[in-house]
């Protein structure tokens, strides 16, 4: 789009000949170094991973070509299947909760109040802070006897919880950290969306005496939907891949109750050093992320169609 805008005045000013002279493909030298690096550290690892996934490849022993047997092994690996379940639960919660809280925060930060800039800076600190450092403090806060969270619960009369130390509560507890950390990102994206909304619909809504909730539900929400979708997509990609927080707080435990695909991939590749099998997991993992993104795109399209249908 921007090239269109840029090329029009130039084309209008000059004749066709110099215009053509200005556009040979001589920008290539600028891109070549990056191309080499991207080939070496992104494309090559990908190709090599696919090749490794077709081999029995363990550190310290000879490699043999085994075709798709690593992939077949995945289908009957209970730990992998369990990890998919954990990943999906973790991801769905870690997308929905930040979307809800982030939207609320964006609506609030869209208002004018004293110290807004500074407070926005404070609000985005959780997502910029070093995840391992954050995880460490959360681990202390989750401590069943000495942790501050159980103390806070006791103040409102809720019995102490085991948080990340019990299989039933470990994933919700980790989602709590993830939500705390990444709600600011949703807020920033939605805030950008709010800034682009025209004021007219709000003025007429005010004249019609609409309540705050009605204004949000029928004016704001439909208009920020595209931004919520982008935020949801980014959130999904990051939540599926979440590693630092889970690894530093639980290492997938207790038992394997919080072992997501990424954590399992780490164990297979760098604790058991089964690199062939690990590569197969990496490939399937990537395909799963692409699949989830496709499902979200499809759902979004369906929503748009029903909107159009209900408008008609």
């Amino acid at each position, binding site marked *: 789009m921007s090239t269109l805008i840029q090329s029009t005045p130039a084309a209008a000013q000059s004749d066709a000949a110099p215009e053509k002279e200005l556009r040979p493909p001589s920008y290539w030298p600028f891109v070549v*170094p990056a191309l080499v690096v991207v080939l070496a550290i992104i494309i090559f690892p990908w190709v090599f991973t696919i090749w*490794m996934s077709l081999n029995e490849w363990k550190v310290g022993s000879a490699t043999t070509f085994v075709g798709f047997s690593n992939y077949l092994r995945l289908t009957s690996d209970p730990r992998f299947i369990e990890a998919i379940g954990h990943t999906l639960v973790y991801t769905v919660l870690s997308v929905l909760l930040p979307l809800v809280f982030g939207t609320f925060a964006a609506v609030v930060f869209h208002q004018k109040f004293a110290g807004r800039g500074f407070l926005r800076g404070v609000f985005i*600190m959780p997502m910029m802070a070093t995840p391992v450092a954050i995880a460490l403090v959360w681990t202390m806060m989750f401590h069943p006897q*000495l942790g501050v969270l159980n103390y806070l619960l006791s103040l409102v009369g809720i019995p102490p919880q085991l948080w990340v130390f019990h299989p039933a509560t470990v994933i919700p507890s980790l989602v709590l950290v993830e939500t*705390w950390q990444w709600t600011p990102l949703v807020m920033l994206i939605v805030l950008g969306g709010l800034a682009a909304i025209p004021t007219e619909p709000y003025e007429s809504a005010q004249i019609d005496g609409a309540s705050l909730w009605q204004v949000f539900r029928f004016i704001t929400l439909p208009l920020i939907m595209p931004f919520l979708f*982008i935020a949801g997509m980014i959130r999904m990609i990051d939540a599926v891949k979440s590693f630092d927080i889970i690894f530093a707080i639980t290492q997938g435990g207790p038992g394997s109750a919080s072992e997501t695909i990424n954590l399992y991939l780490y164990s297979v590749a*760098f604790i058991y050093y089964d690199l062939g099998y690990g590569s197969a997991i990496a490939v399937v993992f990537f395909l799963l992320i692409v699949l989830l993104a496709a499902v979200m795109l499809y759902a979004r399209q369906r929503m748009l169609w029903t909107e159009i249908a209900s408008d008609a």
Partner: protein
Amino acid sequence: MSPKQIIGRIGLWFAVLVIVSPAILFFLWMLSLSLKFEIDNASYPPVFIPEHVAWKNYTDVLASNRFLTYFVNSLIVTGSATVLALVIGVPAGYGIARMAAHKSAIVILIARITPGLSYLIPLFLMFQWLGLLGTLVPQIIIHLVVTVPIVIWIMIGYFETTPMELEEAALIDGATRWQVFRHVALPIAKPGIAVAFILAVIFSWNNFVFGIVLAGRETRTLPVAVYNMISFDQLSWGPLAAAALIVTLPVLLLTVFAQRQIVAGLTAGAVKGG
């Protein structure tokens, strides 16, 4: 102000308080943990402001010469990965924007989606074969996986918004493409480069997953070093919290002082690699 407006104001401030307090309380608690002796950290109900402040937690961490080594490691890895990414990525962003080669951004997108561990498996083997394990070189190289896509992505977006007229005028005057880039495009792009620089620094500094696999005892970066403290000092929370705060302090300061650039970069969509 009418009563209704006053209620609205109070409601707004209450909402602001609710939204901001999880972040504020967390970091205050982190600070509190880091300034308390073990007696206070192990007491129930918890002590928020201690009677005796344990500055010792900080001096102990800073005085250990290992910590200094890890700090220098972090500086070298993040510094090199960021500078290399800028040297490679800024011209690339320029070239892609001027050629309008938008399809090439798909590679960046794939890099964005791929889990960091997928890069580690093949590159780990490469580094092993090349005999580079045990040095900082593998970590510098693999941090490029984080920094290069961030820089390219942000610079494409930035160069697309900078005006072409000046550059075309310079070309007509006989400047080479390189001269145009160096003397016309680059100076205008400084704010964009600042955004790319800050985000690359933060996400490289924070990176943990590459370090736990590639770092040896002498080559740990700060996040890995702090993680390794957990297993040894399970129960001394004070020094641990102090170390955690020291590690993340540079990033927190950047967040407060360069908030505008960070927000601009993050909303451009190039968030977090690895």
